[in-house]
């Protein structure tokens, strides 16, 4: 009896389970012993700079790439051996385009539906529904190649939703979307989560988008450096964040260390410091070094602060390093 109930139980706790996955492109290690779980009906975000390994993981989970080491399950199905069963359950939206430019929006969706065995009245119904949700109804006769970047993205997302998947994988879905369309997309994703219990894995490099997720994993150079709800992650930084601009940051760094016994992080030309009582420290700092400090900002930690806290450099800088 026990062996019968176990798989169901583990499925109830995690909709997607990634355990100890590593992936190499030749010499380059793209993913380094990655493990995490996505719970049912959760919106799970993978946040990280471009080149951090998000897309590689996404390609593995969407069954496009073969697993090299480690294993993963989606809805309790094994990614290595049950790819076809997994493919019927997942809806995939790629970061790179997957539309046929020579076909109209409607034709693109029609062929997509056929690939999932949807035809006839059901096909027309589903296409009409996704077109309406993504505000594409009046564009359905347009050739895909004639659409603007933002509209193309919306058709991509529509493709992934067509067969009402239980698990949605979205790679940077809001790239190229204007703020209005981005807002609508998130509203729709949350509606899918709430009303149909859809589990959503989303990758993003946008901090404000990450805030929408129930839980977040921060991916940096192929490693998961922190995992939790956006609030938990911010709390892990501790207290307030001070960013100090100075003409000679190196000198100031040394002086702060000597005077206060705390060592700030140097990020480019500014110094960063976390302090449990930031406003008090700020006053003391200005009193001690009125000349050296050109400006100070004090705030509650943001997700970007979490990233800097864990990696020691700024988000966009990490992208350039890759």
């Amino acid at each position: 009896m026990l062996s019968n109930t176990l798989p169901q139980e583990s499925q109830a706790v995690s909709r997607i389970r990634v355990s100890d996955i590593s992936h190499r492109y030749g010499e380059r290690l793209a993913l380094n012993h990655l493990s995490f779980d996505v719970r049912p009906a959760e919106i799970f975000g993978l946040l990280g700079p471009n080149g951090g390994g998000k897309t590689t993981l996404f390609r593995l989970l969407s069954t496009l790439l073969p697993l090299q080491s480690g294993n993963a399950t989606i809805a309790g199905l094994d990614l290595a051996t049950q790819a076809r069963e997994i493919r019927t359950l997942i809806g995939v939206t790629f970061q790179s385009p997957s539309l046929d430019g020579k076909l109209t929006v409607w034709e693109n969706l029609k062929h997509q539906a056929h690939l999932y065995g949807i035809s006839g009245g059901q096909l027309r119904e589903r296409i009409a529904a996704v077109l309406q949700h993504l505000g594409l109804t009046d564009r359905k006769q347009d050739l895909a190649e004639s659409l603007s970047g933002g509209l193309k993205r919306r058709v991509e997302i529509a493709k992934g939703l067509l067969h009402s998947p239980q698990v949605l994988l979205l790679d940077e879905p809001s790239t190229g979307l204007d703020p209005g369309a981005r807002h609508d997309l998130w509203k729709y994703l949350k509606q899918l989560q709430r009303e149909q219990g859809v589990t959503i894995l989303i990758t993003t490099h946008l901090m404000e988008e990450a805030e929408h997720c129930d839980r977040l994993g921060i991916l940096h150079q192929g490693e998961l450096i922190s995992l939790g709800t956006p609030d938990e992650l911010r709390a892990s930084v501790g207290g307030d964040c001070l960013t100090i601009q100075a003409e000679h940051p190196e000198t100031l760094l040394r002086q702060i260390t000597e005077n206060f016994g705390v060592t700030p992080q140097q990020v480019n030309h500014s110094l960063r410091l976390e302090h449990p009582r930031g406003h008090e420290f700020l006053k003391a700092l200005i009193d001690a070094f009125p000349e050296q400090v050109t400006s100070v900002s004090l705030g509650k930690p943001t997700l970007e602060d979490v990233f800097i806290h864990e990696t020691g450099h700024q988000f966009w800088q990490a992208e350039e390093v890759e």
Partner: protein
Amino acid sequence: MNQPVAVTPATPFVLPILSLAQREVVRFARQRTRVIGALIQPILFWILFGAGLRGSFKAPDWATAGMTYQEYFFPGVAVMILMFTAIFSTISIIEDRKEGFLQGVLVSPVPRSSIVLGKLLGGTILAVLQAVLFLLLGPLLKIVGLAPDFDTGVTLAGFIPLLLFLFLLGFSLTALGYLIAWPMESTQGFHAIMSVFLMPMWLLSGSFFPAGDSGWLSWIIRANPLTYGVTGLRRLLSAGPALPSAPGNPSLVVCLTVTAAVCIIYVSIAIWMTRQRATRNAR
């Protein structure tokens, strides 16, 4: 929208084949230059080589009396049209991968064999349509003096077997194109293969000149699987009593068997290749 729609539980097999084939045909029809290119060039070849080589052509022993070069060349041009169309429609695999359409197909639950068969069916339909167009319209060029007056042997009763054979040969050539295109990263590479492999294969298939007793060359022609396609077509097109079997001119049964066997081999390899998950399929 609020009601989850149940996805058909059985993985669809035929629907995706037809859908992907339809896409090929629609795309082709929307690119007019492709329509013209694949049909006009072989017809020009037929007229120009027909006129140029008329004097120096020596009909093979098995030929009907008074066979002109243009009459000999007729099935060869039809095969060339099949080959060009079949092969250019498989180049689209490289474009599909570059433009990203392919990755969308690969993450769907469609059996990999459906993906291959859909692509091949689409290419074959286009190839057969153009070849038939040539076989019916080519001889009419005699009205303007650009073709000799000869009996193509195309009858109402003989049309169905002819169509079926063209379909088999077209399918085989499209599968060959698929085998070449699938591992390719760029269309430039495909053009290189086209000129060093596919054109010689066509030239040495009895399309352009008969095998005769030209020593080593005739052995290459006999070993070339396409020879059996060209000869099979020639036999289905010849009017009157069947052409005698001779070296370099195999019987219809042999032609059919070889063409079908080669087709099965190409298609099997194509499906096997498509089943492999590989980095280059991702964009």
